[in-house]
């Protein structure tokens, strides 16, 4: 059965809001966690380890009152998806740079932490896409350097997180500046978002390039100057060849997207539900 046709049908049902249409198809829209042993025998009886950084608000982070509780858009999305599959889960919290190697080595089963799709990463892992995102140029409140777009960055100082797509964008832009005989961009690489934003706060950098989600940034201190990379795909990282898990995830996410669970998640975390992308397995 072609998964895409099935999912398109589910989406149609969702918009109709009428679960009664096509009872045969409606049966597919329900989660069957108790049937995991028959549907996904390789996943039954195991606890799934989910690699996250717990340092990426609003996607994965620690609750402010009780830090032993994990919270975030991706954390709840993962809990819902695996509840639908019927597999117990355990979050493995580690430094960002170690999450992907751990996935490849089999030390975790999935990586679920606002992981952007890039062709480069897809060489080592497979994705189950579920959302989209965009990048932004973030500046101090009041935009003192009057940055409106990429070209305004020439000759300024900018920071981005290690290994992010925004670092690549900065490097390309800096090259473009020098090609047009403008001064290059002084690029700093930060370990994590808090240290990058500290650079902005204490004036060491003029701009931060990072996730383009408004709720991430304290409006009293920062503002978004420019949005780019609209349409960046976000997916769950799965080890290459783990097709059973990929199938389970794409089905479960499809169901959750169809029955409105994910829409509620977006709204709860003050994200735009338009960002949702139909569940899809991508292997390259």
């Amino acid at each position: 059965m072609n998964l895409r046709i099935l999912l398109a049908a589910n989406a149609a049902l969702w918009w109709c809001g009428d679960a009664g249409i096509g009872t045969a198809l409606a049966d597919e829209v329900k989660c069957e966690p108790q049937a995991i042993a028959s549907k996904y025998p390789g996943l039954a009886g195991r606890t799934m380890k989910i690699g996250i950084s717990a340092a990426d608000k609003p996607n994965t982070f620690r609750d402010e009152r009780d830090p032993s509780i994990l919270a975030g858009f991706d954390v709840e999305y993962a809990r819902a998806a695996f509840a639908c599959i019927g597999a117990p889960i355990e979050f493995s919290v580690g430094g960002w740079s170690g999450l992907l190697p751990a996935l490849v080595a089999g030390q975790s089963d999935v990586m679920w932490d606002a992981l952007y799709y890039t062709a480069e990463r897809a060489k080592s892992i497979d994705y189950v896409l579920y959302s989209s995102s965009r990048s932004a140029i973030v500046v101090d409140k009041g935009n003192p350097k009057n940055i409106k777009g990429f070209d305004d960055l020439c000759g300024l100082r900018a920071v981005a997180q290690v290994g992010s797509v925004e670092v690549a964008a900065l490097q390309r832009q800096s090259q473009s500046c020098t090609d047009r005989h403008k001064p290059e961009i002084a690029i700093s690489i930060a370990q994590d978002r808090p240290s990058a934003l500290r650079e902005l706060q204490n004036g060491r950098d003029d701009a931060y390039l990072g996730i383009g989600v408004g709720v991430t940034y304290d409006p009293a201190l920062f503002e978004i100057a420019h949005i780019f990379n609209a349409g960046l795909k976000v997916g769950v990282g799965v080890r290459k060849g783990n097709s059973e898990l990929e199938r389970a995830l794409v089905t479960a996410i499809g169901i959750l997207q169809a029955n409105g669970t994910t829409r509620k998640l977006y709204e709860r975390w003050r994200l735009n539900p338009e960002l949702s992308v139909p569940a899809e397995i991508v292997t390259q």
Partner: protein
Amino acid sequence: MGGASKGHNVGRAALGCVAATATLVLDAGQPAWAEDVPGGGLAGLAHWLGEVGHYAVLPFLLRGALLAIEIAVLALSGGLVLGLCLAVMRLSQWKIARGCAWTYVWFVRGTPLLLQLVFLYDALPAVGIRLDSFTTAVMGFALNEAAFSAEFIRGGLLSVNRSQKIAAAALGMSSFLTLRRIVLPQAMRAILPAIANSAVNMIKGTSIASVIFVNELTFRSEQIVAQNFQFFTVLTAAGLIYLVLTTVVASVQSALERHFDQDRERTAPRRFLLPWRRGSTVEPPCNASDALAPSAGGLFEGIAAVDVTQRVPSDTPCVVCSGVCKSYGSHEVLRGIDLAVARGEVVVIIGPSGSGKSTLLRLINHLEHLDAGEIKIDGAFVGYEKAGGTLRPRRDLARARAEARIGMVFQHFNLFEHLTALENVIEAPIYVYGEDPARARAGGMRLLESVGLGHRAHLLPHRLSGGQQQRVGIARALAIAPRLMLFDEPTSALDPELVNEVLGAIRRLALSGMTMIIVTHEIRFARDVGDRIVFIDGGEIVEQGTPSKVLGSPDHERTRRFLSIVEQA
């Protein structure tokens, strides 16, 4: 008076620190502080400190601290044990052991710890070894620490005076026993500060393991900061927690250093249960002065009478040297020595310095290897076996020396510096010959009393005069019930006024019937005590005979020349 002004200075410094910190915090121009401190002024500071306090006792962070401690304790223990093995391997006589250890240290010390951790965690699964985060972290830190501790332990072992190992070898102690009981305890003074450094570094350094999913204190702090962006507040709290942990390490270090401090007076019985400290009972101090006990001769008779080789026929000479040759590099020290010593005989060897006298003694109890010739003690080789016509040193040399029971007294005493006089005396009987500790202690006290040092039994060697140390050295050699005693210039390092007390002890030992070979410059003593005088010059025996013959009317010109020089001094 000095104490009061010191207190004032400390107070002033503390006040200065507080003032500086307050200025920093209250300076409204610092945006980072302002972020964390709502509203300025003292109220803001108090609020901020309250926040810091809140995080400093947060169970989430304390659990991270506990994890850091667990990893650090396990990794440090494992790392130190492995490091000790590597250090010993690097000091081994076998090239392959040295090579392996050096390669390990070179590689592990030279590659980043982060790389090693990620390799263990993410690369090993490819060959089927999948470890969890905690195990990986402990292993990775331990293996890494081993490489570094191997070096500072090796440094500590090398810093122990060679003479300690020579004395231990003469008593028949194996290399492992010497390491465990003599060298390591003395090396601890040099090693302990480095160990404490490692402990502190490891507790703080566990943060690097966040990349392999270890959620310790620093990483947990970073996660909280990712949520509330209050970097300074949270990290100050974490810093306080680390400070408490490292202070504990520092106190343990102080306690251990006091324990191993040789300069400190030991007044109370030692209660530590470390292997080098057995609890000792404090004996009531003797009222006896330093005078030699009158009944001492009887004790020495008892020792000499212990014939451990009753199987040997009584007409076998005790020592037989035939054609003994020894060279150091190209320098020939001994060129064919033939010497026989009968049981109960006292042979005194005299000669110019560099003539090979001390070398001969060290060859007799196999502290050095023979180049050619044979030496037999009571008809048997000491640590040699005949293999196709030539003598080859045995593998279990220490055991052979122990069985041979040859006591040696050194020019520079070579007492074990970390043990009291009594402990020096009973060390070999207990640990080499397996004697019952209580009996050994009683026997040791008797020996010390017989050399007139019963009331100094619980002093460390550095608290004794040279003459007293040498007498302890004699008692220590006697404690193993030797069949033969070797004296290597026993009074050469002593002040003249102390020489007599040692010579007196040796004289009484000779009178009691012990077989002795004495190398000395004391001609009068030689004449008094020796049954036979042997004059060695240029690596050969020039002349030997009764004292009256050799010292009174020597045959050879060289003997006459030597005697005239020595007797003028």
